[in-house]
């Protein structure tokens, strides 16, 4: 019976992984967060502290909402070894429809939003059909889509269509109502939400750990969980205070667009990590033949990926139209590149199969901070583009080199 004692003692050893092991094992997934922190600190310094003023933080999210939203969809597309080049064109076209719906068809803002989301889904289904059921590569299908929908956008919104509905226009710029009033210069609701989130995070972390221990599965060391909780509490607390100070005398706190982003991240994180569909996306990207031979309906999964991309493009076009307050044929130029870049900076594998939502979101934020920091410093937009381009290349190069050094 020496054999069984050997295995049990080995199991104990693996269960008692130390804090150091955990940090080392996850250094790659934290690297991207560290990069974001470094970028923020650098620009905080370069801009003399102007980057992290409350209103600049809110603007960061409002201006980059479309990148974060489309990057979620793009992430799934890239994991499944495809690409979507049509994002910007679709946003322009759907925006045009929304603006016409409100101006010419007399729809209220809510119906217009529904129409825009439905059109987004329809476009997603259209592209998904060609990719999944006919087998036209995503690159080609969406290259066609890029030309097609840019053309259609020009047909319907060749002259810009203004949006007059104030509720619609406020989607991108409004804050959640401050139902708890102001506590000093802090928005009450923001403080409450911030605290609830931090406490919920801590409770969930410990519950997950206890559950794992109870079931005799491998658990994270307590020190590691505590460290995570302390860091989240500090960063979350600082962020809460920043947000709570934002806005003006009458409104402020959590911007509506941030709420939309957070909701989408939560939903899609769950979908990608906890559902069969999410697992299938990774399975297709990692080894399509093996996925098929395991009974996974790869066509339906691929169709759903594009359907979903269409939906998120619908959401992004609502936000974009609301922010610009008018639909033009030129809206959304190169938005797809922003989404793709966010995914790659966030560690999504160019060859598919690997990628996370937090990674892609941090990738989007890094781009956003670069944009905002450089523009606060008054750097010419052309140079901003140059710098962003280099960052994308460096990010992927870093990814590849760090993988190589592991072997």
């Amino acid at each position, binding site marked *: 019976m020496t054999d069984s004692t050997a*295995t049990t003692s080995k199991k104990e050893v693996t269960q008692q992984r130390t804090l150091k092991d955990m940090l080392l094992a996850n250094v790659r997934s934290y690297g991207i967060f560290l990069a974001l922190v470094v970028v923020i600190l650098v620009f905080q310094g370069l801009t003399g502290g102007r980057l992290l003023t409350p209103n600049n933080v809110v603007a960061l999210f409002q201006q980059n909402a479309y990148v974060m939203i489309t990057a979620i969809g793009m992430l799934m597309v890239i994991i499944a070894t495809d690409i979507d080049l049509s994002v910007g064109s679709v946003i322009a076209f759907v925006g045009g429809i929304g603006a016409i719906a409100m101006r010419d068809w007399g729809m209220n803002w809510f119906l217009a939003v529904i129409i825009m989301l439905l059109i987004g889904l329809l476009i997603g289904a259209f592209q998904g059909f060609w990719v999944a059921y006919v087998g036209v590569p995503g690159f080609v299908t969406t290259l066609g889509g890029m030309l097609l929908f840019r053309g259609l956008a020009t047909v319907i919104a060749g002259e810009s269509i203004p949006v007059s509905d104030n509720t619609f226009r406020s989607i991108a710029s409004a804050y959640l109502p401050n139902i708890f009033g102001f506590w000093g210069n802090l928005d009450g609701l923001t403080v409450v939400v911030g605290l609830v989130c931090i406490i919920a995070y801590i409770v969930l972390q410990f519950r997950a750990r206890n559950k794992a221990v109870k079931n005799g599965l491998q658990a994270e060391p307590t020190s590691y969980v505590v460290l995570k909780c302390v860091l989240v509490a500090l960063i979350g607390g600082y962020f809460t205070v920043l947000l709570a100070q934002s806005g003006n005398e009458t409104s402020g706190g959590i911007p509506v667009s941030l709420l939309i982003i957070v909701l989408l991240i939560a939903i899609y994180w769950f979908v990608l990590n906890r559902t069969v569909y999410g697992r299938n996306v990774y399975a297709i990207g*990692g080894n399509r033949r*093996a*996925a098929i*031979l395991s009974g*996974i309906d790869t066509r339906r999964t691929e169709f759903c990926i594009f359907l979903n991309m269409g939906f998120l493009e619908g959401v992004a076009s609502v936000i974009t139209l609301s922010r610009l307050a008018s639909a033009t044929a030129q809206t959304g130029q190169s938005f797809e590149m922003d989404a793709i870049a966010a995914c790659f900076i966030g560690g999504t594998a160019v060859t598919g199969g690997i990628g996370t939502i937090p990674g892609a979101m941090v990738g989007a934020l890094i781009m956003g901070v670069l944009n905002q920091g450089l523009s606060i410093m008054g750097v010419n937009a052309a140079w901003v583009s140059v710098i962003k381009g280099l960052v994308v290349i460096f990010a992927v190069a870093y990814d590849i080199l760090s993988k190589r050094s592991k072997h």
Partner: protein
Amino acid sequence: MAGKNDVILEMRHITKRFGPVTALDDVNIRVNRGEIFSVCGENGAGKSTLMNVLSGVYGYGTYEGDIVYNGEVCKFRSVRDSEQKGIVIIHQELALQPYLSVLDNLFLGDERKKGLAIDTATERVEAKKVLEQVGLDVDVDTLISNLGVGKQQLVEIAKALLKNVKLLILDEPTAALNDEDSERLLKMIDHLRRTQGLTAIIISHKLNEIAESADEVQVIRDGKTISHISVDAEHPLDQNILIRDMVGRPLTNRYPEHTSHIGGEVLRVEDWKVHHPLDTHRLVAKGVSFNVRAGEIVGLAGLIGAGRTETAMSIFGHQYGVESSGKIVLDGKPVTFPTVSSAVEQGVAYATEDRKVYGLNLLQNIRENTSMANFRHLAHMGVIDRVKERKIAQKYLHEFKTKAPSIETPTGNLSGGNQQKVVLAKWVSTDPKVLILDEPTRGIDVGAKYEIYEIIDQLADSGSGVLMISSELPELLGVCDRIYTMSNGIITACKKADQTNQEELMRYMTSSVPISKEDVFA
């Protein structure tokens, strides 16, 4: 043959480390000119690492020790350096370009030129010569992807001959070949060394082949040189001694003792036909019939090209060929499997050959791969029950003795044997009535093979029927209760394993007479 003291290669005190891991620990080998030198060892013993050091894949400076080739110390910094001296390595995974022609592949990287243009006329003449030497009769304009693995292997060797090879290293050259092709390949190498004075180092898991072909056998275990055996007509290789040295313990029986408890029929396939996907007039399975009973392990023997995998793949959710037809009876009821998931849901599982290409997602971890085919048990309303998922993965990790730090280890980091165990866990966890295994032990070392056989036996004991496709006849004889032979799309025999032998099976595998209707079902 050259004298025993004509040393072409000596590797002295080679030590190679990867970070904290010592892959090679003071390895010493000496190879005489004109001999076939076989390197044996379990997977992970360090054979491939040693060959990579020799051929310059791991350049000078990354290892300790000396490589003495033709009496001079060599400091290869790349494969190109070693090739210039006439050392050519042919890797297990062939390095040919599938969509280029035989001719283009032969001269890839070393094109004959006339000015700036490629001189195809000269290339054709040279190609013809080397292809004749290796006994390959194909049109040089054929695309590599249209050749079988056996012929691709010959193209690789022809390519080595073009590089003026003196010392040829073959890493598992026969792993993907059937017995016939393997024998032809080894004969050809024997011929080349007689006519051209070629020296060959062969890494192989197939002990019979080593016994037949090698002059010298070097056993490596855990990165160390363990023993050296000289083989000649008077001193044939004792395979038991070889196995003992390889695994470090005497392996008295290479197949576990097992008595089957055979129940009623679970799967019956009648008159199964399938057409080739491209050449749609050609039948690949010409009316195949067989059955599997509960608790029974049934073998399916055949040479490559017999249509075994194609038959299994086409039954399993039409994953091969077109216009398949025939009758499938599962547990007494006629069924159809229009998709893979319908087959899995009704209790048929198929662990495919080539686990890296068809079996695993190497980017995902053991847990994720284990549950890949089993979500109907692991998910409610599309949401995965994570605790259940981890428990099942953990259970099979433990039961199958998979060597991995945890269920969160990416399958890409595992050795072949352990990867195969994950594939088996994936299918066994679906609780199949019938499990089809396609070459379950290919490229796996002796110790892990034994453990895989034990898993197969356990599965049969739990009441599942097992259909095992294998190109290794001793394995089929050692593991199966009953063996079908297949030849050129037809079933030619059905034999009880304890009443037949390799010679008889081989006879039926090359026969073209179909089995009589009465004998086909048990």
